């Protein structure tokens, strides 16, 4: 293998550098200082081809906003979004359009993600036509049939309306629409969260199969940690607009090194009444992203909080290769670090 090729294959498909997304709140009539929602506040990650990166966190942590920025459904306030070596964060709508083929999306709600007045055939044909992927009508038809086969729906369903399908089937149509553009990356925004248990398993398996078959990269945004552990390669744990811990699946789920990750994992209800429970119940609620706490953003709920946390914000620091956490405790010697409490999962 010669050098340039190697460089190409090791370059990440998607690179996000110090992404910030701030929303000004509508100012009041009487000139009060404008308040700003710090939805995403300095976030970096990379996704390689064929890889799944999951962003997990609770509502309001900004994980969906990151997904929208990667899709360029919104323009970031600051930072870079680099797709296959090209910056897309500051591109114009027209310049961006041909590049959109590479990043597609699957949404949470199988009902509102399909236009009720557009037949399945037209919904799937839309990206194929827009990106000029089909050579002629026959090719378009072949592609539509292949998409339906791929997501496990009958070909006759192409001429039906969205309301004729169940939630799980609609989600399959949504996946087929994303695949129609032949993307390199699919943003799955809570893509299986609204589905029933038995259907959820079908869709999770389908996504896994498609990834293996087509070499897709996935940005999997979810609050469901068990599903994430099942599907992902790497994880970013988000809290109030920042990544507090990132690492491989095993690093995060077996040896988490941030108190928030540990609490999150311990809070997941285990479907086994015999399972031992070592629950870290966090006090209180997530603070508002309008006015995030000074110092470490997690200090208001952290069970191990100490003085330094209230004043100095910890940066992500490497614990082992590929595993980073933003917690002052990890600077302590092993004997004094309460986060080193055996394996978790």
């Amino acid at each position, binding site marked *: 293998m010669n050098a340039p090729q190697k460089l190409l294959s090791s370059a990440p498909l998607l690179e996000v550098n110090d992404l910030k997304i701030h929303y000004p709140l509508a100012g009041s009539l009487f000139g009060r200082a404008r308040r700003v929602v710090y939805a995403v506040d300095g976030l970096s990650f990379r996704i390689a081809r064929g890889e799944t990166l999951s962003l997990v966190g609770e509502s309001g942590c900004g994980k969906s906003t990151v997904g929208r920025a990667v899709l360029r459904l919104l323009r970031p306030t600051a930072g870079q979004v680099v797709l296959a070596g090209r910056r897309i964060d500051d591109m114009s709508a027209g310049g961006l359009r041909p590049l959109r083929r590479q990043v597609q999306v699957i949404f949470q709600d199988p009902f509102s993600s399909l236009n009720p007045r557009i037949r399945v055939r037209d919904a799937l044909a839309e990206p194929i036509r827009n990106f000029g992927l089909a050579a002629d009508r026959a090719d378009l038809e072949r592609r539509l049939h292949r998409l339906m086969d791929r997501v496990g729906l009958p070909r006759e369903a192409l001429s039906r309306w969205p309301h004729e399908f169940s939630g799980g089937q609609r989600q399959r149509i949504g996946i087929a629409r994303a695949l129609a553009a032949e993307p390199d990356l699919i943003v799955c925004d809570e893509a299986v969260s609204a589905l029933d248990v038995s259907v959820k398993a079908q869709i999770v398996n389908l996504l896994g199969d498609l990834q293996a078959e087509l070499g897709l990269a996935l940005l999997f945004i979810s609050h469901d940690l068990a599903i994430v*552990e099942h599907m992902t390669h790497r994880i970013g744990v988000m809290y109030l607009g920042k990544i507090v811990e990132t690492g491989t699946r095993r690093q995060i789920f077996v040896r988490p090194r941030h108190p928030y990750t540990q609490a999150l994992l311990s809070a997941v209800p285990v479907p086994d009444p015999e399972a031992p429970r070592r629950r870290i119940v966090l006090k209180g609620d997530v603070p508002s992203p309008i006015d995030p706490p000074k110092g470490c953003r997690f200090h208001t709920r952290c069970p191990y909080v100490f003085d330094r946390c209230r004043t100095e914000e910890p940066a992500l620091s490497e614990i082992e290769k590929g595993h980073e956490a933003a917690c002052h405790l990890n600077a302590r010697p092993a004997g004094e670090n309460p986060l080193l409490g055996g394996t978790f999962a």
Partner: protein
Amino acid sequence: MALLEVDTLQTHFRTPDGVNRAVDGVSFHVERGETLAIVGESGCGKSVTAMSILRLIPEPPGKSAGAIRFGGRDLLKLSEREMRRIRGDEISMIFQEPMTSLNPVLKVGRQIGESLRLHQGLGRHQAEAQAVDMLKLVGIPEPKQRAGEYPHQLSGGMRQRVMIAMALACSPKLLIADEPTTALDVTIQAQILDLMRDLKERVGAAILLITHDLGVVAEVADRVVVMYAGRKVEEAPVRRLFAKPRHPYTRGLLGAVPRLGSSLEDRAGRLAEIPGMVPSLKTRIEGCVFAGRCPEVQDVCRRHAPGLEEKAPGHVAACHLSLRDQAAAA
């Protein structure tokens, strides 16, 4: 005698394209102080069952038949007036979405006090003082101050605590909780589940928990009813159900849930799927309701609907396969 006895409950709805048999012949009971979970996927009739117990089904288009015995009375035979006296007093309910079930223009202390004044005839000051006590009971910090706030000023977790305080205000004998933690974040869900467990011991109310989440069931339930397509397909004590599920649907559900710890295995396998989807409840189903998706289906299943059989003490399931199991054991 059990606190609540539901006997062959049927709740059907008239729709333009036929009668929807949302609940079709469900029986179970709730003992004093226990937590019974009804688990199933959307459309299985678990919420309709809960609404039927409180007589919250609009008639028409709905209609309930069978018997719901509570404290020696059949709730289905009571007048609306008598029913109103029971709701919020002897039986109360918490819902999935706390924001829509709280009145946005009433302060929370006032809302909790309202039912105390209505059902227990307390005066306004007395009622609001007790409301503050209730808020304290459900672990709301600075209860006195919170009582003077409106629902929109509280976070989602706080609102669910307020809902619980409101539901418990009149010391009900039965609390019906319909997906009480589904809309909440994991860490908040953990708080609420802890609270429910803790309150169960302190208040002593029986809980009928409606949920789709087997994790939640495992955490708080004593006994479990599994519903599918409007029927009860299995009922067992919680440990037994998870250890020895006897209905193929229950087995399918348990297999389909991913569990934490899968990263300890080298590569994640596939999740067990239940193929196909729930049958329409608008046509009468001959035979077993699960036959169309069952991996172990036999001819007889398509012809004869299985009745509930006791497989072990307190463990019933509606499945013909048990015959084969017994034959194999013998």
